[in-house]
């Protein structure tokens, strides 16, 4: 059932965003062309400079912000309207579990964030290629050689992998945080949206206090661990210490994710109230 739910949620998502992604890529091409024209003409004054040199960059930046905001709004809206609005009558009468519904929404939200990020990176690449393709390709071709020359300490690959995993987990957990807040808001009889916002802020404050307390508790231990790696193995040891820090963060995020996921599930299982 999870695969089928993802298919349905993904269609709903792609339908809204493909035009924006395409527009972003197109603006990347426009920016590349305008930068090339301005630099080649050497005219940095007047209205043409604004229209060709500055306006495309402003439009590109605004579109990136619009996509980021729309993605956030979409993630909230799909959960709120898709499960707790009229569409919930359809979704909650499908023979799927609540856990599958939450998982589907989380996975599609992550896919949305990943594709949006990827399109943003691709747009930067497009600007560079359109501006000067030979130099861009030459630069990209040299990157592996540059990387080989850098004396990366042992364990750097693991560190990068940990960072990527932590980023993905944090993205999922931040969405689950939103779902948990919406589910808490659903417990209210009236003004559920406002209660959801309050719940989100409340959870944030509680987590800040918890993080502060944990950091206070663990700072001396982390300090000892950090000193151990540094004293024992020098520069290479720092990678181990950072890696250990990332590991602790990953564990913390995983625990939060599990709490949010099951907290949302329990509310929707036991207190669902589609009115």
């Amino acid at each position, binding site marked *: 059932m999870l695969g089928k739910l993802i298919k349905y949620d993904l*269609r*709903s998502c792609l339908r809204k965003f493909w035009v924006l992604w395409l527009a972003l890529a197109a603006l990347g091409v426009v920016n590349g062309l305008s930068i090339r024209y301005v630099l080649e003409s050497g005219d940095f004054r007047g209205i043409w400079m604004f229209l060709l040199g500055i306006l495309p960059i402003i439009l590109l930046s605004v579109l990136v912000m619009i996509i980021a905001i729309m993605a956030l709004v979409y993630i909230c809206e799909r959960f709120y309207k898709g499960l707790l609005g*009229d569409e919930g009558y359809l979704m*909650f*009468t499908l*023979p799927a*579990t609540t856990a599958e519904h939450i998982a589907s929404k989380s996975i599609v939200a992550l896919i949305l964030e990943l594709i949006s990020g990827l399109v943003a990176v691709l747009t930067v690449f497009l600007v560079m290629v359109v501006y000067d393709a030979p130099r861009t390709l030459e630069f990209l071709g040299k990157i592996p050689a540059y990387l080989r020359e850098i004396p990366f300490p042992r364990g750097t690959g693991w560190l990068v992998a940990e960072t990527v995993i932590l980023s993905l987990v944090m993205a999922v957990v931040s969405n689950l945080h939103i779902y948990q807040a919406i589910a808490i808001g659903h417990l209210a009889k009236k003004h559920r949206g406002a209660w959801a916002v309050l719940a989100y802020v409340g959870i944030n404050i509680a987590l800040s206090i918890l993080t502060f307390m944990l950091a206070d508790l663990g700072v001396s231990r982390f300090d000892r661990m950090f000193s151990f790696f540094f004293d024992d193995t020098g520069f290479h040891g720092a990678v181990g210490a950072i890696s250990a820090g990332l590991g602790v963060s990953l564990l913390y995020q995983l625990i939060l994710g599990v709490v949010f996921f099951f907290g949302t599930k329990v509310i929707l299982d036991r207190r*669902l109230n589609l009115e």
Partner: protein
Amino acid sequence: MNELVKCEALCRDFGPVKALDGVDLTLEPGRIVGLLGPNGSGKTTLIKIMNGLLQPSSGEVLIAGHRPGPATKGIISYLPDRGYFPDWMKVGDMIDLFADFYEDFDRVKAEDMCRSLELADAQTIKTLSKGNREKMQLMLVMSRAARLYLLDEPIAGVDPAARDYIMHTILTNYSENGTVLISTHLIEDVEQVLDEAVFLQQGRIVLHESVDGIRERTGKSVDALFREMFRTQMWNGGESNAR
């Protein structure tokens, strides 16, 4: 045990209001049952609880021996009292969705019914008229060979011709072994097809009897009995008008 639906001491409160107040109800397979009651009597609340869309305050409901969950949702075909299809989806998308999720869905039957209403696969839901949207929902719901059909006010707010179409669609498409529970307050339109009638008043079942039994016992139609039982005291304009 031959119970398809079993409600025991089912209660649901909305603050101080008791929407359901100790409902005990048993329904057997292969019956067409009218869930009859005036507005606000608890019909929709009872159906939502059977679907798992609402949790009871106390008591229990079992569908084919299971509490509402994925297993019961696979055998219940539910028509809510509102539009619940996403506007952006197309007619064909909705057929695909039902075919994807429900093993008992008959795609050929659904497509035939859509053709009879001249609904094209490529039409989006939001371009359909309100009437066609409601008919399409009904068609998809009735294209399932479900064990239990829960139809919440299927004929409310439509003209008499549309009522005939809806009742015809229900009667010619439900699975023969399935039970159909139709909630309505328009009893005259459904009475002829009912096997049983359940009268709900202020969250309580005040009558559950076969339609033939009601007619024999009271010498009245279900509609006449309903009007008698639920008649509201008319306001005649107060004492000044009575003089």
